[in-house]
């Protein structure tokens, strides 16, 4: 039963996004807003009934999860690219809050530093540089709204339907670290009371323990990408010869010591 409710909700969500998309004929903002808020409320209600009932502890989860979805909708539907970037930053911040609620402070702060602090600022930078004379018409409307929404919401619905089938009780995920690295397996999901020191150390030990090769490989990949980007973008532009005779320094006049 629940998967079908989820699918219906996702379909409605897709419809809401479609309505809110900037179109030359003008978008139905109000209907989209009503529908979108209804879908988010439905999703959260479904979650609260099926998984965890809202209480004072997870109030912030419901608040920021709803806000994140709403902001994510605006990222896609806002006609001004700069606003999209700002809403994206809002999504990142909301997700960071959700991570803090999960006591994953390191992930939360890393997300903020990398996404909100670096990548999105670069986006904003590029948008500002590219659109000094106002937004271009191709940027203010969606090109293939129907197909994009169809594909993305089918994927999202499929994932959500699958997640729903997973047992609602939190799984105690245990990363089995080889005995050679540590004697005890590191537990990444601990009850809140046991995690006074936070996750940072555990993440570090996992990243540079069993997954060292993967981390290093992705690092090398990024480095290669950076070198490639620099090689593509940076071209030495020769200074044009203006044809004026260049006077050698000291040919005319008298030289004085600087300052």
């Amino acid at each position: 039963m629940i998967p079908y409710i989820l699918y219906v909700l996702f379909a409605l969500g897709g419809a809401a996004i479609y309505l809110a998309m900037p179109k030359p004929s003008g978008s139905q903002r109000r209907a989209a807003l009503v529908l979108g808020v209804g879908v988010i409320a439905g999703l959260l209600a479904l979650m609260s009934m099926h998984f965890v009932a809202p209480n004072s502890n997870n109030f912030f989860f419901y608040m920021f999860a709803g806000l994140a979805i709403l902001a994510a909708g605006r990222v896609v539907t806002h006609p001004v690219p700069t606003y999209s970037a700002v809403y994206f930053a809002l999504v990142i911040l909301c997700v960071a809050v959700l991570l803090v609620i999960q006591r994953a402070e390191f992930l939360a702060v890393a997300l903020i530093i990398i996404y909100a602090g670096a990548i999105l600022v670069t986006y904003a930078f590029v948008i500002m540089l590219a659109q000094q004379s106002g937004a271009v018409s191709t940027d203010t409307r969606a090109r293939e709204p129907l197909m994009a929404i169809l594909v993305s919401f089918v994927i999202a619905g499929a994932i959500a339907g699958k997640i729903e089938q997973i047992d609602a009780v939190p799984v105690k995920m245990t990363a089995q670290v080889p005995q050679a690295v540590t004697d005890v397996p590191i537990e990444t999901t601990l009850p809140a009371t046991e995690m006074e020191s936070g996750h940072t150390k555990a993440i570090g030990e996992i990243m540079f323990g069993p997954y060292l090769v993967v981390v290093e490989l992705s690092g090398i990949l990024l480095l290669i990408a950076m070198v490639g980007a620099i090689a593509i973008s940076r071209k030495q532009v020769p200074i044009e010869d203006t044809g004026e005779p260049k006077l050698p320094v000291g040919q005319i006049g008298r030289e004085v010591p600087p300052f």
Partner: protein
Amino acid sequence: MISDADIILIKEPKLSAADKLYLTQIAEGVKVTLNHLFFKPKVTVQYPEEKRKLRVDNYRGVHRLNRDPDDRVACVACFMCETACPAHCIHIVAAESPWEDREKYPQQFDIDELRCIYCGMCEEACPVDAIELTTEYDIVGQSRDEMIFDKEKLLNVYDQTKDIKPRKNPKISGYQGTGDREKYDQLRERLEKMVGEREPGESKSTGTEATEGNAQ
């Protein structure tokens, strides 16, 4: 045309190894500013309480209308200053002089101190050294009207500044008009005839008309 000898070539300074780190140069600069911060005397003049000494004696500040030794206004309402004024800030209403030694006197003498550019042309133009510029510069007012100095105010300025800057040419008694006594008498006769034909009240209006004509 600049001759080659006048051309100065400045090459970029050669930086030493330490200079290229930039930090030593910062230290140099900070040394200078710290020296100024703590040890150099402060040069600010706390203006209303203390005033800077005037650098020139003939500083051109606010105007004054001089008095002659008999304490009358020295001006003879000749309109020379009004004509000379490039800013058109002087307005004179002339009237027949009540005294024997001159034919006209300023019934009204206004200087708009806000329009004035303090060039001193009026002082140059005045044939009797009646208008002079003083060294006072801190004149203030709360409205534009207040800054239009009338005859009383200008004479008042003279009273206040005569000790600091005495009048250049105090002699006014026995002033003989244009110098040619005969011509002067003839002119006076003709003038009296003209004035006599009019109503006594209208006689003043000649001055007003002249002022307006000049202003245009």
